[in-house]
């Protein structure tokens, strides 16, 4: 609550007139209710009792006085948080830190600028506005009128880079000439700071103090947190959320979005009181990690809270094919060195070559592999032509293979054997690396002088070999040769990936070389252009409020090297380069300073939290409301409005309920609610049957499953709950392991939704028992109405191939050893899915038969059978129950008992 002031306080003098109003109101009673009345002869007899005019009731009087008082106060123009009127006559100088750090609370700065402009307008003083963030084309520094200052305040926006107070100090000197004519007057200086320290703070403050009284405005609640990149962790890019003061706890969220704006992840971050940093790692699957476009502190508008993700940090998926021989020691394995040097930038995949080619690897490394199958060669060359990078390392195997003929997929022809330096019988000393040729992707790397090549494999000399050399030894022997092959490239390192032949794998340049090679791949993560000298045009640039916008025509293109420099007017933060592999220039880098501004000799103040607020409209609204109440009261008093109890209650309710009229709008949860039926089944296993719509059939199904559940409870460790009828279209089938589906004649094919649900049910391990119950009538396929209905259902399902159940099927072995799966009838065969794949433990997703299992299993609540058996009497019913137990056991345990099939053979062997 700020100070209350009035724009025209003289009007308040009218409050003196209130007593007069009081007298007037007292004298004027409310007008009486008018009524026609014929019985005047009687009324006239009452005239003696007629009263003198009523006095206005005192509550009404008070109400009206209040109304008048409110109107008078409203007319006086009350203003909350009104700016204090300026003192002194010197020019007003606004020093605005319009840096990235000012974006968070920019409105406060703008309000302050407007306020100061208004203040200057009142006292008719010139305004200097000096912005400290460097500009490409700075506006001329001139004294502004209050109007101009206000216009500038409205248009000024923060710049997405740091402020330059040293530069501002020079500009300050340029303003002195305008202040010369009123030299005796001190400036009224407001420094709207961003609250962050830079190199020349105290000098700048001193320069200001020379010219006048300085008020340093800082954000009242410290500075909003920033997001600083850390060295990428193995799990993903890591960031640190930093803030200046740990005065209170901070709660926020870290959000990562893809280049197309999709949100990829969101992490809630809390910082305790006193904690100023919090590290966050964007743990994402590799595919998603490579799509990362930007991460930000959610809800922050500061460019400092955004980190744009450079394409260069993307990690490639590298397929690694090594020697087949087992290596006991890590240090003798080339893969170890490759992993070590590429670990921050890539994920590795070790598999058969065929599988790697089929995967979405962008780079394949063959570590000393010579022999490949013809099919693999074709696949690999096709993959390289498509844009893959094949990196091969030499080694004993390759050297051996090259003796006879040049192995396929090599950039150059090899000479057999190899070359060893510095051995006991060689003249040559180990060689160093020569400078990298300009045409190679390694150009720009500094060849280390402590790397010696002791042994290598040699290429056939020739013009081709020379042009294909990307790295040479000092004597000119090619060390790395490469050949463009389609869109991709085949690279051969003429040394091993282990330090046996050379020091290269343990040098830093090795990782750098591999990294550049990875970027050559046009597969998988988009490669950054390796040419360091190329200027990258701006793609999307950050504005002062951390929004990405299209670059202007004048925004310069930058070289990748320049991108590492801090942001500035000529290096605007944002994305540069190709859209698919943009390079990022961020406001906050690992080096960016982030410390509170500390200067002495200035008056500190906080930004006015709340802008001036005119209370007049609220007062007039209140007066209007009072007027309405007064009108209602007058009507009631005059008897013209009779409010019954209901009317009064309605008015009170209306007033009380008005604030409740707009209910909260909340986001709906994405997942639908789990209904009670499904929830109950998650707690207790229940057998389920599909409701056919025929009440008799549904009752029979329920009795059958109840009977079967009872037997299961009695005989097995499974203790199912009461059975439940389901509708495949509406119910969640995922909680039921077993579904009994009696097919009735004329059943319509299920809807699309139901079919999708059923297919899902089958795909994820559910077992459906289709029962057409027509065993005694069935002669051929589709011969009965039930079978026709079943065909209608199955024709739309993705049904696996079927076979008839024989005595060796796991269904006959899962609990009881049976020969068949009898139901009430047992004539025609029972069909199950042929075991073509091992999915879902080889559980058949469906059992199809017409044996009326329900009829055999059904029993009433006392356990008495409901239907007679076909043949064999109660003994046959016992077998039907056993078949049911077996079926349910298969649904629950899968092929657990399938080895029972082999029992006779095992027993036979044991017998021997």
């Amino acid at each position, binding site marked *: 609550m700020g100070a209350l002031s009035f724009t025209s306080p003289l009007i308040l003098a009218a409050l003196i007139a209130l007593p007069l109003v009081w007298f007037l109101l007292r004298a004027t009673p409310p007008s009486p209710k*008018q009524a*026609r009345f*014929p019985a005047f002869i009687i009324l006239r007899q009452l005239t003696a009792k007629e009263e003198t005019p009523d006095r206005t009731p005192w509550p009404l009087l008070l109400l009206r006085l209040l109304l008048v008082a409110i109107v008078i106060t409203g007319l006086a123009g009350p203003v909350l948080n009104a700016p204090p009127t300026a003192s002194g006559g010197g020019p007003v100088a606004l020093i605005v830190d319009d840096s990235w750090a000012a974006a968070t609370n920019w409105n406060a700065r703008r309000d302050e600028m407007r306020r100061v402009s208004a203040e200057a307008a009142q006292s008719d003083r010139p305004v200097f506005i000096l912005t400290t963030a460097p500009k490409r084309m700075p506006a001329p520094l001139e004294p502004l009128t209050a109007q101009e200052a206000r216009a500038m305040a409205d248009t000024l926006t923060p710049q997405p880079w740091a402020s330059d107070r040293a530069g501002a100090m020079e500009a300050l000197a340029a303003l002195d000439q305008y202040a010369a004519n009123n030299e005796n007057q001190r400036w009224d200086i407001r420094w709207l700071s961003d609250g962050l320290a830079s190199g020349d703070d105290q000098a700048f403050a001193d320069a200001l103090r020379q010219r006048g009284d300085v008020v340093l405005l800082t954000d009242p609640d410290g500075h909003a947190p920033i997001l600083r990149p850390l060295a990428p962790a193995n799990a993903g890019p890591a960031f640190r959320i930093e803030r200046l003061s740990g005065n209170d706890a901070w709660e926020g969220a870290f959000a990562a979005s893809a280049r197309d704006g999709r949100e990829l992840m969101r992490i809630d971050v809390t910082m305790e009181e006193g904690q100023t940093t919090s590290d966050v790692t964007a743990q994402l699957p590799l595919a998603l990690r490579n799509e990362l476009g930007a991460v930000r502190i959610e809800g922050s508008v500061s460019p400092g809270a955004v980190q744009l993700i450079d394409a260069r940090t993307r990690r490639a998926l590298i397929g690694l094919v090594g020697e087949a021989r087992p290596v006991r020691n890590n240090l003798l394995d080339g893969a170890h060195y490759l992993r070590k040097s590429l670990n921050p930038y890539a994920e590795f995949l070790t598999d058969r070559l065929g599988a790697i080619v089929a995967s979405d690897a962008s780079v394949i490394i063959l570590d000393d592999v010579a022999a490949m199958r013809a099919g693999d060669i074709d696949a690999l060359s096709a993959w390289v032509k498509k844009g893959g990078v094949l990196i091969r390392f030499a080694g004993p195997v390759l050297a051996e293979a090259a003796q006879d003929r040049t192995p396929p997929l090599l950039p150059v022809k090899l000479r057999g054997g190899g070359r060893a330096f510095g051995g006991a019988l060689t003249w040559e000393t180990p060689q160093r690396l020569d400078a990298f040729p300009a045409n190679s992707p390694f150009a720009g790397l500094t060849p280390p002088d402590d790397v010696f090549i002791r042994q290598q494999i040699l290429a056939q000399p020739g013009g081709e070999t020379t042009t294909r050399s990307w790295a040479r030894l000092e004597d000119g022997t090619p060390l790395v040769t490469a050949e463009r092959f389609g869109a991709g490239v085949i690279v051969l390192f003429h040394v091993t990936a282990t330090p046996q032949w050379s020091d290269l794998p343990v040098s830093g340049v090795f990782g750098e070389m591999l990294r550049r090679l990875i970027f050559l791949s046009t597969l998988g993560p988009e490669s950054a252009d390796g040419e360091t000298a190329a200027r990258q045009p701006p793609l999307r640039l950050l504005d002062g409020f951390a929004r990405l916008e299209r670059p202007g025509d004048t925004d310069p293109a930058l070289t990748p090297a320049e991108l590492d420099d801090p942001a500035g007017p000529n290096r605007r933060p944002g994305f540069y380069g190709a859209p698919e592999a943009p390079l990022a220039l961020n406001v906050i880098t690992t080096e960016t300073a982030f410390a509170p501004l500390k200067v002495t000799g200035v008056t500190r103040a906080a930004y006015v939290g709340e802008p001036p607020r005119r209370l007049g409209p609220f007062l007039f609204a209140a007066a209007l409301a009072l007027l309405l109440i007064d009108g209602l009261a007058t009507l009631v008093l005059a008897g013209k409005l009779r409010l019954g109890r209901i009317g009064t209650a309605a008015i009170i309710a209306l007033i009380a309920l008005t604030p409740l009229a707009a209910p909260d709008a909340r986001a709906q949860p994405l997942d639908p609610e789990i209904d009670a039926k499904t929830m109950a089944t998650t707690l207790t296993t229940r057998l389920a049957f599909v409701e056919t719509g025929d009440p008799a059939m549904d009752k029979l199904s329920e009795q059958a499953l109840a009977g079967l559940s009872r037997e299961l409870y009695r005989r097995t460790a499974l203790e199912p709950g009461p059975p439940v009828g389901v509708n495949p279209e509406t119910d969640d089938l995922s909680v039921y392991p077993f579904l009994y589906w009696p097919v009735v004649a004329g059943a319509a094919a299920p809807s699309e939704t139901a079919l999708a649900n059923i297919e899902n049910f089958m795909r994820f391990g559910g077992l459906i028992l289709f029962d057409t119950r027509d065993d005694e009538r069935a002669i051929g396929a589709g011969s009965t109405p039930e079978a026709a209905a079943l065909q209608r259902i199955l024709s739309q399902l993705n049904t696996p191939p079927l076979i008839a159940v024989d005595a060796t099927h796991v269904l006959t072995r899962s609990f009881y050893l049976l020969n068949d799966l009898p139901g009430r009838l047992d004539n025609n065969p029972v069909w199950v899915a042929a075991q073509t794949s091992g999915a879902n433990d080889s559980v058949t997703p469906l059992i199809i038969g017409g044996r009326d299992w329900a009829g055999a299993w059904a029993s009433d609540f006392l356990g008495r059978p409901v239907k007679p058996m076909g043949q064999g009497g109660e003994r046959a019913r016992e077998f039907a129950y056993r078949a049911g137990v077996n079926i349910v056991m298969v649904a629950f345990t899968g092929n657990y008992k399938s080895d029972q099939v082999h029992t006779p053979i095992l027993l036979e062997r044991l017998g021997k």
Partner: protein
Amino acid sequence: MTDPQSAIAVRRQAEEAAAFFPALLVEAARIAQTVAAGLHGRRRAGPGETFWQHRAYAFGDPVSSIDWRQSARVADRLYVRENEWEAAAAVYLWRDPSRSLDYASTKMAPTKRQRADVLAVALAILLSQAGERIGLLGEGRRPFHGRAAPSRILEALHIAQFNDAASSPALAELTPGARVVMISDFFTDPGAIETSVATLAAAGARGVLVQICDPAEEDFPFHGRVEFHDLESKDRLVFGETGALAKDYRAKFQAHRDALATLAGKAGWTFISHRTDRPAQTALLALFSALGDARRWTQ
């Protein structure tokens, strides 16, 4: 009230009200019990339709009056058939034409004038069914009789629009033994009414005063500050707290009504009060019994 629709409405309501009653006779005790259609026998021979006696033919009797069948039974004697002398009574209606009747406190209730018209016409219907003659007090015309009488009464009532001057009944030449039915709110000086009643009674008329009141007039359901407008004089009266006055008002109102009843009793007349929120039948029943009351009826 001049539009035909409302006239038809009044007629219809009146028919409805009258439908509950047997034909009304303003007749003597011997037919008081059985309300039958017919004229009132005067227990002597005279013009009429009911056989009274045979008498011997006297010179001068018209030949047409000879009862030939009777004469044929007796030799040399001629008998003349004499009927009982029947004469219809005249009932004179007076409905207050003043503006004060044009009042209804709620929109649901009819105005007093409407109710008065309904009562008047209903009575006219009953009387005409009974064969009585019906006249309007103050109208110079002869009393109507026959089926058309109610219509003509209604017509006459509607012609006589608001006439505030005539708020007390006019005095008129009446046939002896006539009945007078006065329908009004009687919000006038009881003295004036008494004068009229006494004059009429002196002329041999008997009658009924029917006071029609609006519930508001009787209950005085006002609250707060009310300014009352008189319907006739355009006078205004302002009362501060009308709710507190209600008790006084009711006492005065009752006193006024008692005065009316008393003056009616003095003249041997009947006083009936009726509220417009009650069904018209109740008033009509009271009127019926008052007119048909044999004890009050003497030749």
